């Protein structure tokens, strides 16, 4: 551990802060962004990473960001939403999301998902490097 980055994109500052606090406690780096657009502009995607996206955000929501991100890089995505309805979940999963979790999510569940996502990204990077 050490170079792995978890991107947290959520418009609520308390939520991003608390997520950073939690995720950093298990040794990942965390970068936070208030919305999809800021994330697309700011994130470098160097090294293994994954993204935790809120669904509803001003400027660019999670689902739209997912579409945009696909064109750029195939990093694992974990959705975190306050209100997960079925069509929204289906859409996110179809778009290739790893997880669709509702707030407040159990810490263990979230951390397990992050671990899984990071190792998945490591594998993908390794495969694309060997190809």
């Amino acid at each position, binding site marked *: 551990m050490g170079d792995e980055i978890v991107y947290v994109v959520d418009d609520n500052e308390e939520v991003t802060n608390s997520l950073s606090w939690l995720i950093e406690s298990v040794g990942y780096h965390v970068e936070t962004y208030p919305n999809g657009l800021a994330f697309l502009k700011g994130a470098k995607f160097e090294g293994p990473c994954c993204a935790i996206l809120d669904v509803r955000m001003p400027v660019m929501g999670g689902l739209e960001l997912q579409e945009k991100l696909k064109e750029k890089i195939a990093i694992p995505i974990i959705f975190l939403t306050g209100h997960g*309805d079925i069509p929204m979940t289906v859409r996110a999963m179809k778009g290739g999301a790893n997880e669709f979790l509702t*707030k*407040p999510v159990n810490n263990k569940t979230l951390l397990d998902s992050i671990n899984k996502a990071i190792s998945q990204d490591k594998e993908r990077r390794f495969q694309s490097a060997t190809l």
Partner: protein
Amino acid sequence: MFSQITRYLAQTSFRHQLSILVFTGLFAVVIVAAIGASWVASRVVAKDYLQHGESLVQAFAKQSALALLYASENSAKEATSMVTAFHDVKQAAIFNEKDELLFQSAHIQAWNKSKKESSVSPLLEFEDGGFWQFTAPVVVSFEKDGLAETQNKVSKLGFVKLLLSKTKLFRIQKQIFVSITFLAIATGILLFIALQWLLKRMTSPLQTFAETMHQAEAHGAGLRVDLSGSKELLQMSKAFNTMMHALEEREIKIKQHQAQLAHVSRLKTVGEMASGIAHELNQPLTAMVHYIGGCVERLKQENVSPQIIEVMLRVNALAEHAGDIIHRLKNFLRKGELRKEPMDMNALIREVLKLSELELLEAKVEVILHFLDKLPKVNVDKIHIEQILLNLVQNAIDAMRSVEEKARKLTFETLVDGENVIKVLVSDTGPGISDDLVDKIFDPFFTTKESGMGIGLSISSSIIETHGGKLTVESNFGFGSRFILTLPIKEEV
């Protein structure tokens, strides 16, 4: 004067107008008939009187022959007294051949000498306002004896004159006129009464009808007319009853629809409030859960008493439990919300405008429609979309109260944007929304109205999102606002 009469006639009832017309007509007929009949009758009586005068003067002439033959005053007196026995004969006289007066009864006025050929009667010598002066020659005829042919030889002895008074004639004429006029007026009155009765029979159903209509206008439902009368009236009452029935049914439908909308609106309001509260609570709960999670991880690494970690995990579990309750509440509120069916947005807008017709009229808002023909149908819950549109109309009305009446215009425009999206643009000419408020108007509990909860647009926005669409606003501060409703033509998923 004339214009006053016409104005009065225009304002008064149909029955009144007919009455006036009938009365005037009858009055004219009665007057003409009375005058005409009197004139004819007077003529007949006058002619009779003339004949009476003629026969009197002729008889008088015959009776005077002897008196003139013998120039006997006694005989003359006798003959005269016979004729003056008639009450109308006021003055009689016998003249000889030389135009000398032999005898004259009472002298009332001088004999008129002017000889005028009368066309009325050959024996009528003179006529004035009060008298007729008749004259007749007194002749004797001798039988000529011994001649083969029997021929009468006529010899004139003199002439008689008499003065016949017209007083009685006038009286009779007056009596005739009075009785005929009286009869005519009596007949006229009887006729008028009969016509009035007939008119009442004819027009009273109309009046009942008019009254019922007036009542219907005042307090609506349940009124029917039951008219008897002519065929046209029956048809009219039938048409009226059918119309009332249709109107009532329409009103009931509208009321039901409004009640349904109000119910949905209430449910939505409660739901949205709960949703808003839930969302607001959920965020700090989430932060709490993760902060505690971070603490627990760190404490584990620092070798602290496991009791502290246990307590923190208990706190975490409680926060998660609270989050669970919130989710259950949200799921409950969301249950069975949408009943989608393919709808024509143009028709739906028209329906909404019908529902808010009165308010628009009251606020003197002009509605302008720019509809795209053959607009593709969208799959929506009719009641919910109607609610959004009603809310937008209400907002527009409220916004435009501050501008002058002439400038209050509400425009609906429908269009297809791209392949699978339609747009409904709702523009008003209100004061618009300032830039610093534009971002806030969709937030729950944000309002600029004095009496408003500030959840209309927030609810609308969330309804549209559940339909896979969007509600946005463009505002030109000072010139008006435009709300843009985007809806997918084909439903996703």
